[in-house]
């Protein structure tokens, strides 16, 4: 929930991109995070090549980590390592898809507001009102009523995440439309869509980049929270489902490995995504750049 990180994003001129990248490269935190994130995505894609799908039940229930079971076994004797690896797929998918959707909605709404001042009062108010809603309880409510599936989960998370995106992008877009070159574009008679695409969109692009990292990492935690409360799907493995099953079977109280590893996986994903956005932000900001 690092709302604050988003607020300090400043506008970037296109020529600064190179400087940003060179500053980014010099920050070890950002680079390490990039590698970790890439690894997680690879694990998600190539899960079947890494380990067989978690199945096979046996007498070896709740075994501590060992050579045979790197992350130990769960209450049905399934390999927790396999569950975490396979769980990466749905967890990453939910995070990516829901944040992508939230960003698309949020950016569209924000741009409309920024470009058409008449609509902005309404849009600004609606965004503010949405932000005042208690998000997690509402998601619990909607999931409980609408049912659990990966698709509904993605839609629900996206639906409750876009106002935050819209808020930051809107404030960025508002300051961009006031810049002189926008007036120039308007005077030369460019169409609205052309101006939005050519000038407004690039101006808010950096905020969007940061938003992607933040909304997706928040989506990972939200999905796990819903799953933990029994509101996630159980058709596919996800990190949330591992935690939910550990909770239900009472394994959390006695078998630390059933919760530690999926929680760590989430932690690593969220931390690396957030650090990338922070590093990117620092790198773009000439004042905080290390040169």
């Amino acid at each position, binding site marked *: 929930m690092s709302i604050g990180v988003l607020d300090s994003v400043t506008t970037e001129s296109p020529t600064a991109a190179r400087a940003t990248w060179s500053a980014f490269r010099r920050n070890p935190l950002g680079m390490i995070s990039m590698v970790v994130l890439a690894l997680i995505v690879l694990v998600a894609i190539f899960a079947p090549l890494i380990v067989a799908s978690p199945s096979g039940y*046996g007498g070896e*229930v709740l075994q501590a980590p060992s050579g045979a079971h790197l992350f130990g076994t769960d209450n*049905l004797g399934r390999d927790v390592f396999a569950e975490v690896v396979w769980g990466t797929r749905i967890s990453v998918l939910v995070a990516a898809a829901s944040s992508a959707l939230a960003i698309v909605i949020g950016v569209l709404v924000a741009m409309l507001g920024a470009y058409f001042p008449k609509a902005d009062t309404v849009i600004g108010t609606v965004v503010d009102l949405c932000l005042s809603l208690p998000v997690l309880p509402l998601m619990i409510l909607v999931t409980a009523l609408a049912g*659990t599936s990966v698709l509904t989960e993605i839609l629900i998370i996206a639906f409750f995440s876009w106002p935050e995106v819209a808020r930051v992008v809107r404030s960025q877009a508002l300051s961009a439309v006031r810049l002189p070159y926008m007036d120039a574009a308007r005077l030369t008679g460019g169409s609205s869509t052309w101006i939005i695409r050519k000038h407004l969109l690039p101006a808010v692009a950096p905020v969007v980049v940061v938003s992607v990292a933040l909304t997706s990492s928040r989506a990972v935690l939200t999905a796990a929270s819903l799953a933990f409360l029994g509101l996630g799907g159980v*058709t596919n493995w996800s990190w949330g489902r591992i935690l939910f*099953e550990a*909770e239900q*079977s009472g394994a959390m*109280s*006695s078998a630390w490995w059933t919760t530690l590893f999926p929680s760590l996986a989430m932690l690593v994903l969220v931390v690396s995504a957030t650090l990338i956005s922070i590093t990117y932000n620092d790198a773009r900001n000439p004042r905080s750049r290390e040169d």
Partner: protein
Amino acid sequence: MRIRVPIIVVAALAAAATVAACSPAPPKSAGGGSGSGTLTIATTTDVVNFNPLVGNSRTDDWVTDLMYPRLLTIDANGNKEPYLAKDFGYSNPTTGYYDIRDDMKWSDGQPVTAADVAYTINAILKDKPAGNTTYGQMSNVINATAPSATKVELHLSRPDSTVISEVGFWMNVVPQHVFAPHGSVATFPNNSNWVSAGPYKLVSAVKGQSYTLDRVTPYPFAPNNTPTLQKIVYRVYPDINSEILALKNGDVDLIGNSLPPAQVKSLQTAAGIKVQEAPGLGYEHMAFNMTKKPLDNLQVRQALADSVDYNAIRSVVLQGQAVTTGSSPIPPVLKDWVDPSLKEYTYDPNKAKQLLAQAGVSNLKLNMIYSLADPVSSQAATIIKDDEAKAGITINLEGQERNTYLANTASGNYDIYLGNFAIMDDPTTNMSLTYLPGGAINYSQVNDPALSSLITQAQATTDKATQKTLITQAATMVHNDVYDDVMYMQNLYFAYSDKYSGFVVKPSELLSLLDPQSLANVKTTG
């Protein structure tokens, strides 16, 4: 730093004020009797409603059972035993009766009378309280009367051999003089100034947190008419893991819910903790929705039943804490009713494939619904899915949140239903609910006139031997025609601190160690 101070001060003052408003006042006086001691019981669900005629959650039952007596109780073999009723039966085919004890008193001094019993029955019939279990069992009851202070009569519209034992076991008797002034029992919250017939009485209730009950005397089922402990406290732990930690830590003395199977072993060896086994009184079953093709075909149902390794489910999911029922709907705990000649469906994927081929069914895809709130079903489901796959049947698992699940079971929107029948205390009643067309839990939607006839005959006869013959025939039919696929009966385990002893063990999670007679006799050993 001027601002930080005011914000914090304002916040702290506000917090202190609101919390101070919650500060409990010390009790005026404890209940009678000499012994002291408090037993703290953990439960995962909060009390929803204090009116036992409305009751929603398991904890509601536990708490209100300590105040509002049932007429009958169940012994370890599943037989109905006297409790408030000393004697019960039928004086003619359409009149049932209870003779009740004359030595039970409400905590405000009034005696518990037959008028209270008759009032409770008539009020349920009239007001139809929403969560009431008894209402559905009284479809043949016209009304109840109290010819004397200790005799209750139920007048029936047609012979019904189960109503006396079922109403006797399921219904809590409430004090007429407390409930009647409030009008409809369906909307009376009963959330303060409780009046109890013992062994304990609620004295304070803090939602989401704790419920404190004090001893009530005289209580005839305790030594010297006095419940042994002074207080019973229920504490709410929504998460089973913190509940277990709280027991180990001594914050609570007993976990009311049955333990997750995988935790039994580790708690049996934990220091200071004892684990008690109690028979289950229900079963886990799969019901194949016979209104959906090709599940109306016996061979297909047989194929589905033969592809599941029930032994594996019992040994892995339940850690061996379950027994087979021989694929019969009558669990072995009901010793008077069980038919040992019925044998479990044999696990044989090849035979299942042949059966499917004979039925001309290939590429069978079915969905199976179960409640995500039921961990044992959820885990069994994954094994069933894998087993059916070996016979070439694709099962689409639909673990659902409680409300979606309820909506789908009510509308018959599933191919296979997987779930737990928690309390199966009377085979006749339960078979009528499960296998009669229109039955409340007829999940396989079976409508077989021959089966229905057996069950309705059994309901009408008061002769136990005839009833048993009919029920055995019905159970055999259910078994052979795969109208239901009963997988096992779970044995339940309860953990408590070794500072306490003297619990009376009763079957099912509803009674277990928490039955009023059990809690009235607990001793402290430490």
